[in-house]
């Protein structure tokens, strides 16, 4: 007998709902017997039963659904290895994959051993599903019965329910911490495996990036080298070009919108700029690769310059356009947060509007503006699709914007989208780059947020 996941879930839900009504009417009956009043509303007792029956069983269901298959795979992995002690790790995984595919009916095979194992595998899975359903449903039934039985009119169910719910709320808030920790741990451990294979300092300070490792051992290929300096330099070059476009245009737009524009113009321009911000990056990438890059090439050609078809300037300029609304809306907020009294004071002393802006408002807003720019830089560094589509793959150590350079994100994508083994040095090097990217942007973000907070505190 198999119990599919959806069936178990709905039985669990139904059971919990049953206990809600069971407890709700039960507590009224108990109170009537004791000719007493319940301390909380009857529905609170119902909620209590529901939560006690549902939440623990649901967690068990989640753990068994995610962990169970892995556990079975591990058992079969060991079994295969015991049967054939001479096989190496990757070959055992290969056989395991074959067994799994045969048991799913995806492929068929004539090998007796594999068919046998596949049968066992299927049975193991059916057993897992059966016991998962049994355990979850029994657990829910048992817990629901116990809690409903123990409820007394004198106990305050509302307080207990609320305590329970606050804990659930707390758990969901803590997910933010878990996510950060998971990012750091997963990047860190994969990167550590990479640094076991490749020297850490060669990675950080190496001037040559060429991840062309031989895929098979018998293949003749150059030894791969993973020096991240050219990749980092390419990233900074493209981000710099983007900032050259985005900072002046974004800042001047923000100053105009905040200080000069009539409400009518503001109401039109702001949402339009928001549209610019809402366009997916893949669209900018398409624009950069198919419109901007040929455009810059033509211009360069007419000036007698040789512009690469994957030039840094095309990717950087389009990235700058993408970041304009980001800078302008953040700076707009910052400029408008400068108190009106400063403006009035300056105007009262006879300064023109431009003088007020240059001498009073911008200096007051400068921490916030720096924060906005730093956030924009962090976005430019982490931006992926534009550079994947418009920048190059080969890592040239150059600062010439007309040549093709590569970036950290481009390398991560190109290293991880091929059909490579997970333990491959190429795959692991992508995590090394990812770790570098994460720390770089994290530092920028923390710095930017603390600077902006300082401004907010100054005028509170």
């Amino acid at each position, binding site marked *: 007998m198999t119990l599919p996941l959806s069936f178990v879930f709905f039985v669990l839900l139904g059971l919990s709902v049953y206990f809600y009504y069971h407890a709700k009417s039960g507590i009224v009956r108990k109170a009537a017997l004791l000719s007493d009043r319940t301390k909380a509303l009857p529905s609170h007792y119902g909620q209590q039963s529901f939560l006690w029956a549902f939440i623990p069983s649901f967690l068990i269901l989640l753990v068994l659904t995610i962990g169970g298959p892995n556990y079975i795979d591990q058992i079969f992995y060991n079994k295969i290895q015991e049967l054939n002690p001479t096989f190496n790790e990757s070959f055992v995984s290969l056989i395991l994959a074959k067994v799994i595919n045969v048991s799913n009916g995806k492929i068929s095979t004539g090998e007796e051993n594999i068919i046998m194992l596949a049968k066992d595998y299927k049975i193991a899975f059916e057993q897992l599903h059966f016991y998962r359903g049994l355990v979850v449903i029994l657990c829910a039934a048992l817990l629901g019965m116990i809690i409903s039985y123990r409820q007394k009119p004198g106990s305050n169910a509302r*307080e207990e329910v609320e305590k329970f719910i606050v804990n659930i709320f707390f758990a969901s808030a803590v997910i933010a911490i878990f996510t950060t920790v998971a990012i750091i741990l997963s990047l860190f451990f994969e990167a550590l495996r990479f640094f076991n294979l490749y020297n850490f300092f060669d990675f950080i300070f190496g001037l040559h990036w060429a991840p062309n490792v031989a895929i098979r051992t018998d293949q003749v290929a150059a030894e791969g080298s993973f020096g991240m300096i050219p990749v980092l330099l390419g990233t900074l070059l493209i981000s710099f070009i983007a900032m050259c476009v985005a900072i002046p245009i974004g800042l001047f737009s923000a100053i105009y919108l905040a200080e000069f524009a009539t409400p009518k113009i503001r109401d039109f321009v702001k949402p339009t700029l928001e549209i610019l911000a809402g366009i997916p990056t893949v669209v900018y990438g398409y624009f950069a690769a198919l419109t901007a890059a040929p455009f810059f090439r033509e211009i360069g050609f007419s000036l007698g310059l040789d512009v690469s078809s994957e030039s840094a300037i095309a990717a950087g300029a389009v990235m700058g356009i993408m970041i304009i609304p980001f800078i302008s809306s953040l700076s707009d907020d910052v400029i408008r947060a400068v108190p009106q009294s400063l403006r009035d004071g300056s105007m009262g002393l006879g300064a023109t509007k431009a003088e007020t802006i240059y001498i009073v408002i911008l200096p007051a807003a400068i921490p916030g503006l720096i924060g906005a720019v730093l956030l924009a830089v962090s976005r430019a560094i982490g931006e992926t699709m534009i550079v994947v589509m418009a920048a190059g793959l080969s890592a040239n150590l150059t600062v010439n914007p007309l040549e093709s350079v590569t970036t950290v994100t481009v390398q*991560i994508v190109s290293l*991880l989208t091929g059909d490579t083994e997970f333990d491959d040095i190429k795959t692991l090097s992508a995590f090394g780059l990812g770790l570098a990217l994460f720390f770089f942007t994290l530092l920028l973000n923390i710095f930017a947020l603390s600077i902006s907070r300082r401004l907010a505190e100054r005028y509170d």
Partner: protein
Amino acid sequence: MIRKSIQSRRARETRLKIYGITSICFALIMLATLLISIGLNGYSALQQAYFKLDISVNTEKFVDDSGAPDNNKMNLFNWDGLVQSALREFFPEVKDRDEKKELFAIISANAGYDLKEIIKKKALGSGSHTLSVWLHLSDDADQYLKGRLSIDIPEEDRRINNKQIAWVNSLVERDIAKLKFNKTFFTSADSREPESAGILGSVIGSALTLFVTIMFALPLAVMAAIYLEYFAKPGKITDFIEVNVNNLAAVPSIVFGLLGLSVFLSTFGLPRSAPLVGGLVLGLMTLPTIIIASRASIRSIPPSIREAALGLGASKMQAALHHVLPLATPGILTGTIIGMAQALGETAPLLMIGMVAFIIDIPTTFTSSATAMPVQIYMWSDSAERAFYERSSLAILFLVAFLISMNLLAVVLRKKFEKKW
């Protein structure tokens, strides 16, 4: 002298204004250029070159001994041959083997398969039938008819040679070939042949992914926001949570892809390319956005509402869930829509978890292999064929139109429910 200095001071103001206006105009012109260039590239994909064939089929060939339709027999039948022989009737002068090959290159390589599907759908009664069907021309013929392939370059550099152009032109003159509305684009999934490729597969993939994202992120974000606003005791843990939320909102999206790859795929062993994993990764990515928006929305509800509830004897939880939350819902919804729009346009994390595969089937479950709309756009614009660019642009137009309407909905919602307390 004073007048002179005033003049220069005023000039400075005018200059600042001009800088501002120029910048805004530059941004708006760029937006217009972007949309117009993509629109000009993409509008022609709304049409596709079709040709009409009169074909006679005998359905008795496709039934088994008992008379029931037999799919196997249908699949084995030489449909390509049927289409090709029907096409040759228009050009009896084509005899040579190489020439025949060239002739068959002007029709879609999937023409036979398409014909089979059409016949299958029609469910003809038994007996012999003659019917006229519209099938795709090849993408090169299609691009030529749309004027996208320039014929000025030398013949050997072109994807379509002079003979083929003559055949296509003669088909058009005889009213057998023409441009018709490209229905295939909206009803099929990806394909190796541009003329049979469509966006439906990726649209469904995106829908499944976003469903997972919203089911995962919205409840968690609302609960976290309520906790942080009303229940968190000021202290180190709360500060740490806040710092984390703010930082996560600015972490590059590709890092979430790496997280998904190493946690969901290799540790939990969830399937590759699945909307379930894509949805979870995008959910983690949008979680901070929704938390921040929900907190702002909850904070904008005046404290008097909560205090009145507390004063009348409601518990803290009741005040939050029964009184503040319903009032904060429009703001939370606005934040959610913006977060979802962001998730819908996101590509990089999906590349990391393998949603970049070539998938011909329309996905049906949360664990079947799927791709998403932005990824489809990426794959098409990466391909060498001109006809795929066109489709990529059209897909962009649909995606952007959808995203803009999502954002507009958010703005309208905000305007409608915005209350001054």
